[in-house]
Each structure stands twice: as C-alpha cells, then as structure tokens.
C-alpha cells in the first residue's frame, strides 16, 4: 500500500508536514495526494477509536451482531434491501457475506430493549428478510487491528547499549 495511506491508517492525526518528513517527499506533494484521496473517496472519513468501557455514561450502550438472511431481488440482488437496512441510524456497519446467512450487521442501541425493538419492529418485518439472529456483544478485545487494553507498564530498560 502507498506510504501516505499506511501512515494515515495507523494514525489519522499525522500532519502532512510529518508525513513529508517520514517519507522524504515534499510537503506540497503530500498535501496534494491526501486531497486527492479525500476527493476520490479513497479516504472516506477520519475518526478516533474509543474504548467504550472507558467513557463515562457510555457503559449502557449495547452493540449486537445481527445475522440476516434475505431473499435477493431480481436485477438488484442484495443491494437494494441492504440499502434499506443500512440507512437506519442504528446500523453501524453492514456487510454482505458468504455462508449460511447474507448480511452481517453491527447494530447499536442504548439498551438491550432498544436493539430488540429495532429487530422486531424494523428489521424482521421487512418483506425480503427471511430470518435474523441477534448476538449481543459482551466485551470488545480487539477492533480493526487495535487491542483494547488499559495502558501497560513499560518493559524495556530506559537506556541500554
């Protein structure tokens, strides 16, 4: 993968100045490239990864993985029904997958009840939805390559040859 993208995936806060220093490219060229990535949709968005357990008032937030089996439609396949589903604000992620079901959703709500209600009143009644299976997340250990841990003690000695 291109250097600039790799650096930004690792830390989106890295400034163009810093990227220029790290890669030996001119600052202007780095800025131009980033702008292009933003415009052509290669870079979709910049956001922080938060450990929800560490955020005050956030402890009640629940997430569920929902497996959805759907009947594909003529001409548009799964895309149309997927769009109807992922447009709900409760749906944080939506994937089309191979295997025994079709869509995998990550759904967020303020309580188990709100998620259950979303499933029963919005998702399941949809015409093309054949079956759903809801799995509430109990703990997040690792997300998108990042391990969720409270700061660890430094193990290396401060100075060595």
């Amino acid at each position, binding site marked *: 993968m291109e250097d600039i993208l790799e650096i930004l995936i690792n*830390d989106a806060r890295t400034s163009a100045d810093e990227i220029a220093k790290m890669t030996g490219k001119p600052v202007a060229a780095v800025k131009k490239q980033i702008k292009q990535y933003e415009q052509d949709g290669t870079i979709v968005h910049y956001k922080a990864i938060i450990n929800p357990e560490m955020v005050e008032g956030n402890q009640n937030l629940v997430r569920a993985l929902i497996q959805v089996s759907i009947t594909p439609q003529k001409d548009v396949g799964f895309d149309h029904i997927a769009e109807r589903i992922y447009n709900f604000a409760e749906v944080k992620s939506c994937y089309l997958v191979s295997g025994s079901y079709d869509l995998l959703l990550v759904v967020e709500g303020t309580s188990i009840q709100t998620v259950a209600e979303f499933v029963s009143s919005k998702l399941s009644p949809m015409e093309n939805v054949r079956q759903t299976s809801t799995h509430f997340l109990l703990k997040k250990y690792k997300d998108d390559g990042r391990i969720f841990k409270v700061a660890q003690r430094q193990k290396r000695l401060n100075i060595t040859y």
Partner: protein
Amino acid sequence: MQVAKAVEQIPPSGIRAFFDLVMGMKDVISLGVGEPDFVTPWNIREHAIYSLEHGYTTYTSNKGMPELRKDIVKFLKWRYDLEYDWDKEMLITVGASEAMDLVFRAILNPGEKVLVHEPCFVAYAPLVTLAGGVAVPVVTSADQGFKVTPKVLERAWTKGVKAMILNYPCNPTGTSYTRNELLAIAKFAKKHDLLVVSDEIYDELTYDFEHTPLATLPGMKARTVYLNGFSKAYAMTGFRLGWAAGPEHILAAMTKIHQYTIMCAPITSQMAGREAIRNGAKEVQAMKKEYDRRRHFIVTSLNEMGMDCHMPQGAFYAFPSIKGLKLGMSSMDFAKDLLEKEKVALVPGNAFGSQCADHIRISYASSYDNLHAAVVRMKHYLEHHRA
C-alpha cells in the same frame, strides 16, 4: 582478594553513572534504548509457549538443535545464496554477544592484536582484552560517514594484527556498506591475511540498498566468522539467541569453549527461533518499514535543530554531532542537562569511542509519538539554552 588484572584493566564505563541517573528518573522519554520497541511477533511467542506446553525443557546439542541450524543454513542459502554446512560450520549461541566472546577466545594468543573500528558497540574492545588480545583502534570520522575504508585501516594496521572486527549496519552510527565498499575492505583483509569477525546483527535493517554479507564476497568465506542473531530483526532481545557461522576449525574451537561455559542456548529460545526463521519474514519487513519512516523523521528533525546528522543506512540509530549547536559543552554534559531539564534520555557519544565526545546516539526504536514528543522537548531546550 584482588580481582584479575585483565578485568581490572578494562576501563570502567565512564557512562555508568549517567545510566544510573537515567534509570532512577521517572517520566523520561528515552531515545537511549538499544533494542526494538516492538514486542516479539505473536506467532514466535506462541511457538515458545507451545514448546513449553509440550515439555521441551531439556538441554539440546551443544551446537544447538540440528533443526534450527538446518533452518538457518537454508535461510542463508535463500536470502543471500550463501552456503554453510549446518553441522560443521554453524553454532547457536546465547546472543551474538556470546559468539563474539567465543571468537576472540578461540583465536587469540596473548598479545595478538585485533583492529576495532571506532565508534563501535561497547563490548568489542573489552572482549578482545579479556581474551588476552590487544584492541587496536581504527578511527573513523564523521565527515566520511564513519566508514571503515582501506585508508583508515592501513593507517591503524601494525605488526601482529591477526583479526579485525567489522560491524555493519553499525551500532551506534547506522553506517553500512555497499558491495563495492566491502570489496575494498575484503582486499585489505586478504592483503594482511586477517580473519574478519563480521557482526551483522542489524543486517535486516538496511534501508537504502541490499545488505551484502561479507562471507559472500570472493575468497572471504574462509576468513570470515559471520555473526548474527534474532534480537534485532525479530525483536527477540530477551530470548538471547544468536549464531556464528564460519570456517570449520574456528567453529570447532568456539564450540569447545561454548560446551564448557554455556552448554547450550536455552531450548525455549531455540524453539522460538525456529518459528522466527521459518515464518518471520513478513513481520521483519513491516518493522523495517516503520523504522525507515522514523529514520527519515528523526534525521530531518535533528538537522532542522542544527545538529549535523548524516543519514544512517541501517540499524535504528542516528549519530549526530552537537558541535554546530555551539552549546559549549561535551555531549556527556549535554545529555545530563537535557535529561535534567527536559527529561529526554540519549547516549553520549564517548560511550562508543574516545573520539566521539561531540556526538550523541539517538535510538529511533521508539514509537512515533515518543519521537515526536522528544523532538518538541529538544527544540524547547535549544530555544532556551543556545547562545
């Protein structure tokens, strides 16, 4: 009871007091660490755990597990087209440091001389001394990028020199050599019939060109003891696992000493080493890429601050001069002051050679956030203390 003279004669590391100062201080950003900041890749750690679970807790062959020696030999053939006999020309040691100690004890008679380039890793000259030899310094200079060249070697050579050390990429300078530069050094070694102890522990961290092992050059395999290990490339410093490859009779002599002093390298480490050498290449490349970015960042930042810093070709150290800062102090005093006022730790150059009192070693084996914060602190220091 007095301690042995040979030990007494080893100069006490003047830097020990400074190290103690750093160790005792809290919240220090340290750029003084000579080991990777990455944790050993999980597949390697997992294999070590697996080996414990399955009861691999015994001695191994003195020379090291045959499987590991075969794996390394196979790796060298694949990586560098370099061939060794796994049984007669390869020894697994407790870190490359042990291998270094063994070589000198294996080859030196009292008073025989070894060329040691400066600046260099702190252990070389003391190990020569402890083996009864005499270390002859080969002084390299900053304006030549601290390169060992036939010219500086000829200048240092005297009668009675039996061997020379070559460390590349070099700790502390990051200096490394192209094949052509190595050919010139090889020519010198052949001319004076020297054995070369080639410490290539940082070989995988060579950034601007391909690393060339000295033993791959024409006629050099027979006069090279090739030292390497797992510490730097695979971030396995704590496993203490290294190896030596070279001429059969020297390896046999080294093995003789090794079997009485060490017996064998720890089996858990050897098992981890097997996983590293078979399935570690991808992680090595990922770490190298990250070091390379930090290298560019830190060298550019140091030069911006007014420190004269050549671009190191390998390892994870920058070795700038502080002379241009016009602080009116030695690098030791600078290091102490910076530690006290800004809590940034680095290593004064005189730890690595008497000619390096104007230099500091900065390790970029530290997270990018740490490097960035350290640069901010150093800039702050210079704003307030530069004349």
